[in-house]
């Protein structure tokens, strides 16, 4: 029987259509249909009058994790133009990106709870996320789509009591992670639902070019912040979290979930270290008024966004607006593995598997 888990559905995280071929309750095949949220991001970039105007558009690609999107694009433009940013900018960018990673993982964890039937952790994670969004609003004025990380620096310097508020948040959030683990992660019903479900073997993950927490959940020790380092990550002390199959097979949904929970703790460590080592300085580098790269310059830069390897390929034709921008969205590539891992499971498992991939349709469809 062919069933449509249509674009409007309470648990496909966004407008995603899954065409499921089902035999009783066992899934025989699952075909994702995407494109419902395509907004012509790459075409828009070609129409912009300068590179700085692309940043608000890059925000809106993965709207749950906007800082990392902006950073990747700014990094690409800066490397193409060979701009050096001040040290302070690097530290602040790291703090913002890690705060954003926590916020994004909170959404992932909360909605994963709803997928499995527990409605309460969602509300708790969103209360925590409000505090992060308040921090962002204090700094740059917006809660979700920031336009903060500019090419050559940042739009604003940190406000007056930002550091104290971040330290307060860290103190507040550590026990909340433990509470979330007690409520959801180690709950036996949740474990039984997610262990040995949607198993993504190591070699399949690597062949499909999966990245981010999904790849690390399958036991692959690969994190772009350590293996292809950018900014100051090599100076900070933190560990990528790997799934070890503690309650089931390596690479099942529970592993991906616990990787996200543990990554939030690691992000707290990174933020603490970055705050401790924050130097003084300017937050805007000296960049030319008209950003004009040389003709036929092209560059591909990849960063570790919340969902995986986010890459931007920019090609310039010598004018002030880019000739071609291509965004490699991690959610798009991660979603491609869904038919492989959903096969053989039940429909209830499909919901949990799709939720554990943590897609944001803005990034899948761009």
């Amino acid at each position, binding site marked *: 029987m062919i069933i449509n888990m249509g674009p409007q559905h309470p648990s496909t995280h966004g407008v995603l259509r899954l065409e499921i071929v089902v035999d009783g309750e066992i899934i025989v095949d699952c075909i994702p249909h995407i494109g419902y949220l395509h907004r012509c991001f790459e075409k828009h970039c070609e129409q912009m009058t300068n590179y700085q105007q692309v940043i608000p558009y890059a925000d809106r690609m993965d709207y749950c994790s906007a800082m990392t999107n902006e950073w990747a694009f700014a990094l690409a433009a800066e490397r193409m133009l060979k701009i050096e940013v001040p040290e302070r900018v690097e530290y602040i960018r790291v703090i913002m990106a890690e705060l954003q990673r926590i916020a994004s993982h909170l959404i992932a964890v909360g909605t994963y709870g709803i997928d499995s039937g527990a409605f309460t952790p969602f509300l708790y994670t969103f209360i925590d996320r409000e505090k992060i969004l308040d921090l962002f609003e204090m700094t740059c004025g917006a809660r979700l789509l920031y336009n903060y990380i500019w090419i050559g620096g940042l739009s604003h310097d940190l406000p007056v009591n930002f550091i104290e508020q971040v330290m307060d948040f860290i103190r507040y959030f550590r026990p909340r992670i433990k509470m979330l683990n007690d409520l959801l992660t180690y709950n036996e019903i949740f474990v039984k639902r997610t262990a040995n479900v949607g198993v993504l073997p190591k070699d399949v993950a690597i062949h499909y070019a999966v990245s981010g927490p999904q790849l690390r959940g399958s036991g692959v020790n690969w994190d772009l912040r350590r293996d292809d380092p950018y900014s100051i990550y090599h100076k900070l002390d933190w560990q990528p979290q790997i799934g070890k199959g503690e309650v089931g097979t390596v690479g099942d949904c529970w592993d991906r979930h616990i990787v996200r929970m543990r990554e939030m703790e690691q992000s707290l460590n990174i933020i603490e270290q970055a705050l401790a080592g924050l130097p003084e300085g300017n937050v805007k580098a000296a960049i030319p008024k008209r950003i004009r790269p040389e003709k036929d310059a092209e560059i591909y830069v990849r960063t570790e966004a919340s969902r995986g390897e986010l890459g931007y390929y920019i090609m310039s034709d010598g004018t002030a607006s880019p000739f071609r921008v291509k965004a490699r969205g991690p959610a798009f590539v991660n979603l491609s593995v869904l038919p492989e891992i959903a096969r053989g499971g*039940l429909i209830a498992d499909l919901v949990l598997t799709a939720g554990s991939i943590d897609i944001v349709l803005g990034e899948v469809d761009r």
Partner: protein
Amino acid sequence: MEFIQTLFANQLLVSILLSALPLVFIVLMVLVVLYTEMKVAAHIQDRVAYMRTGWHGVLQPIADMLKLLQKEDIIPTKADKVLFRVAPFVAFTGTYVAYAVLPFSSMYIGSNINLGAFFLVAAGSLVVIGILMAGWASNNKWSLFGGIRSAAQMISYEIPTALGVIIVVMITGSLNLQDVTKFQDGGIGNWIVFGGPLPWTQKLMLMPFTLVTFIIMFVSSIAEVNRTPFDLPEAESELVQGFNTEYSGMRFAMFYLSEYANLFTVSAVVVSLFLGGWSSPFASFMSGPIWGIFWFVAKAYLFMLIQIWLRWTLPRLRVDQLMFVSWKVLTPWLFVCLLAVGFILVI
């Protein structure tokens, strides 16, 4: 009950009045339970629920019911017309007839039949038919899933329920719910969950088994009502609304009403079998026919609170895990309890 019959000469009128009484009770109770669920759920989730209709939202359930009443009754074109229309009422009937045998107080019981407990278990199966009809007649694959899952679930969980009833019946010796409650009269120590009014040696040996039976019956009663963690038939994240998807307006309200009425029924059954029904926990203090109603409703309400608490804490079980729990955990343990209780009662 007899004095009401002396008031009106017409037997038919009396029967109709008496059978309408639980309906009034259901409607009032549903309003209260809806409000409780809303507020408890909200405060568990660190938010406030409705605050603007009436003081702190007390008029919201009435507003909800009014809204459902005035909605358009949409029937899908390809739906099976007769079954679609009849399904909600079959489900509600199955719930409603169970109210006939609930012992609300020593003076009032709808129908004092000698097969009370057995009747309850049997009437509960009518709800399954209603849900299956709804799932099939909706002409929607997701509703079909919901209906079939629900049928499987309810049938499997009737076994632990029936076994629990048998264990209590073994101790009390009667299927009549009024007699079971009278058996437990006289204070908290006489409740069956603590062994019943038996000599203390037997009581001590019985207590662990009755406690386990009580917990298992409570769990299976949650499954009978389709509430989390067993709410697959209406799993919102998977099946939109399960067998409810195509229903709107008053028909949906019927399903909703029957869900909450069922909630009360199973809580009431557990209460009257194990926790002394309408008898007061303090032997003769605060006891009497009118107090009986208060104790009965209060104890059932306490169990509904616990069910609401569970709903907002736990994720839901998958179909095969649900079956596993029913057949491989609840039923074997109940068989063990059955044997043990029978053995203890004999020696």
